[in-house]
């Protein structure tokens, strides 16, 4: 068979770089499982013939659309991140006399294998967990407790087609990248992040203005119609502002620190500042994404909790439970989706930064930096890089409370204090989860840097 050698090479490649492929595989399978479960509940007959099932079902359908959008976006993002990191490897193929079309074939087979694995695993996990999740949903929504869970074939087709399409597009993109570039360029493109950051000051100013505007809109929201109308524009403003601020703002602040010679050329600050500027230029968008994902988790969870518990005192009709149980359920699933993505992005960042820093720290030791200071420097850098997104996300969430209160008010007479309690509780739990994720992945950093 003519494809056999390419297939074999693809398998070897994936086994060799399993440290990045296994997490990718797990995360993509989780996303696939979530989609398949939601699709099954939304499309299947398990719910629709119960009392109030229609309300819950239309909720789930709406949630599914949003989930499809997010999942697609994150699958593209992670893929482009991974493929960029492999530029040097592809360049090496070229130098070794492996033609571009041959490399593209290897990439194609990798895509096929990943696709099959992810869809297979996702459907399997979805199938196994579907029943339990269904139980949870009927408990939350107070629907008929003795109804049975069935798997709808349509939802399986939906999941297969959706993930098939995502992988097809990703693979085409990867093949296009390999095809388009020359060996030398590919070898160099891993370093492209080292270019100087452009338009730092304008970015910082635009970011501040957008963020200020969005915060003001949220905090000054006086009625629910206004809040509902401007909620998504405000979200968009915050997303844009976060991206601009993480690049422009961070580099601007670090640049100011660098300008003060006494501060910069101080043994405690010199290496961390240099490292951070370098990191920020390379990773601003990754950090901004972590921040946005964290905000989404925080806002979704606190909002749904506030709705559910705040509303519990307001009414207890069947329609109420169907609606808010459905919301709580979707919120729970979105939280898993965002958390999975966030963990994956953090993990990849740790591994890639650890790998990048290995030689640097070896050099610093030779030049006369002692082990204690090396550790201190690493901690300083890594802490700032990973906790900046958390701090900004907490600020975003607090600022969102104004609008959220108005929106909650539109649904039911909800006491604002519920929202604050929910935000506080969610933030505390989230911070703990974030620290755990950080601790687990920082191990990946140290092993990569050793």
């Amino acid at each position, binding site marked *: 068979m003519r494809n056999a050698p390419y297939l074999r090479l693809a398998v070897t490649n994936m086994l060799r770089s399993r440290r990045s492929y296994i997490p990718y595989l797990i995360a993509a399978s989780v996303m696939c499982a979530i989609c398949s479960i939601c699709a099954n509940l939304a499309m299947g007959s398990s719910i629709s013939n119960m009392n109030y099932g229609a309300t819950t079902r239309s909720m789930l359908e709406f949630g599914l659309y949003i989930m499809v959008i997010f999942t697609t976006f994150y699958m593209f993002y992670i893929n482009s991140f991974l493929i960029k990191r492999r530029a040097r490897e592809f360049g090496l193929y070229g130098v070794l006399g492996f033609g571009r079309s041959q490399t593209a074939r290897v990439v194609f087979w990798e895509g096929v294998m990943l696709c099959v694995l992810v869809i297979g695993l996702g459907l399997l996990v979805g199938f196994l967990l579907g029943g339990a999740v269904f139980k949870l949903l009927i408990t939350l929504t107070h629907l008929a407790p003795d109804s049975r869970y069935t798997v709808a074939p349509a939802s399986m087709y939906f999941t297969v087609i959706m993930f098939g399409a995502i992988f097809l597009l990703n693979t085409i993109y990867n093949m296009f990248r390999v095809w388009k570039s020359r060996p030398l360029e590919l070898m160099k493109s891993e370093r492209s992040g080292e270019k100087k950051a452009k338009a730092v000051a304008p970015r910082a100013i635009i970011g501040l203005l957008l963020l200020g505007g969005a915060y003001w809109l949220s905090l000054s929201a006086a009625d629910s119609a206004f809040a509902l109308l401007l909620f998504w524009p405000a979200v968009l403003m915050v997303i844009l502002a976060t991206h601009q601020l993480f690049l422009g703002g961070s580099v601007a602040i670090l640049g100011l620190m660098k300008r003060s010679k006494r501060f910069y050329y101080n*043994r405690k600050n010199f290496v961390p500042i*240099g490292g951070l500027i370098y990191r920020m230029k390379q990773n601003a968008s990754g950090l901004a994404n972590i921040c946005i994902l964290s905000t989404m988790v925080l806002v979704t969870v606190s909002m749904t909790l506030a709705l559910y518990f705040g509303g519990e005192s307001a009414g207890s009709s069947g329609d109420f439970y169907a609606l808010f149980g459905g919301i709580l359920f979707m919120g729970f699933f979105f939280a898993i989706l965002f958390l999975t993505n966030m963990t994956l992005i953090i993990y990849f960042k740790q591994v890639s930064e650890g790998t990048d820093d290995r030689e640097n720290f070896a*050099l*610093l030791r030779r*030049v006369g930096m*002692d082990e204690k200071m090396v550790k201190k420097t690493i901690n300083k850098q890594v802490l700032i890089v990973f906790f900046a997104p958390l701090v900004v996300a907490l600020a975003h969430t607090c600022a969102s409370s104004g609008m959220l209160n108005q929106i909650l008010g539109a649904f039911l007479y909800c006491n604002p204090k519920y929202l604050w309690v929910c935000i506080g509780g969610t933030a505390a739990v989230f911070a703990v989860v974030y620290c755990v994720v950080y601790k687990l992945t920082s191990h990946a950093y140290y092993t990569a840097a050793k």
Partner: protein
Amino acid sequence: MAILSVEHLQKVYTQRFGGVQTTALRDVSFEVEEGEFVAIMGESGSGKSTLLNILATLDLPTGGRVMLNGRDTAKIPEKEAAEYRRRNLGFVFQDCNLLDSFTLKDNIFLPLVLGGENHRTMQQRILPLAARLEISHLLDKYPYEVSGGEKQRAAAARALITAPKLLLADEPTGALDSRSSDRLMEMFGEINHDGQTILMVTHSARAASAAGRVLIIRDGMLGCEVSREGDRESYARRIADTLAAVGGGKIA
């Protein structure tokens, strides 16, 4: 008095599991006088980098001792080792000498910053050094913006800015073409002329001919020594011939 004296140095690497042992250095003794420029040559795997790492206090010998400036380097407490390195030694390696996150200037300042010097002193020291190594116009560039030869000159500047007692270089011309290599050796020669003591590992007889004396290592022992005599060309030829004879296995 010799600035560096190496006495019966031995290094045996023991695998953590299974206890397989590799003898990298068997019995090496030599001395380097202040102001000397000494090259070390030998086949791949003969123990040159091992020797240099021990001299650099990055690794400990399993036997013998190294006296640098009258002090036994193995007796320096762990805590002081980093500072000792910074004050007394300068390093240039084959590659990966510079941090990509800093400009050449900041890379050169690195050991001074770690030593807590003030910015004015740094500025004063870098000017003549950069001029001497002809990188004054490149100081604000990043390592990925300059050529390999320029990078090595910046690395040399970083190694020299602390005015170290001893400059250690492990194949500094290993990644360079012959012209950049000649330029770098020419500069090493000039720096040595100004009084800097240099110990350099190299694979190139041509590069080694910049040194006053060449030590040849074979199988973890000093094979023989070639000293500068006559013009550069014949000196380089003599080094190459001796190397071929020693490397060919005639001297055990």
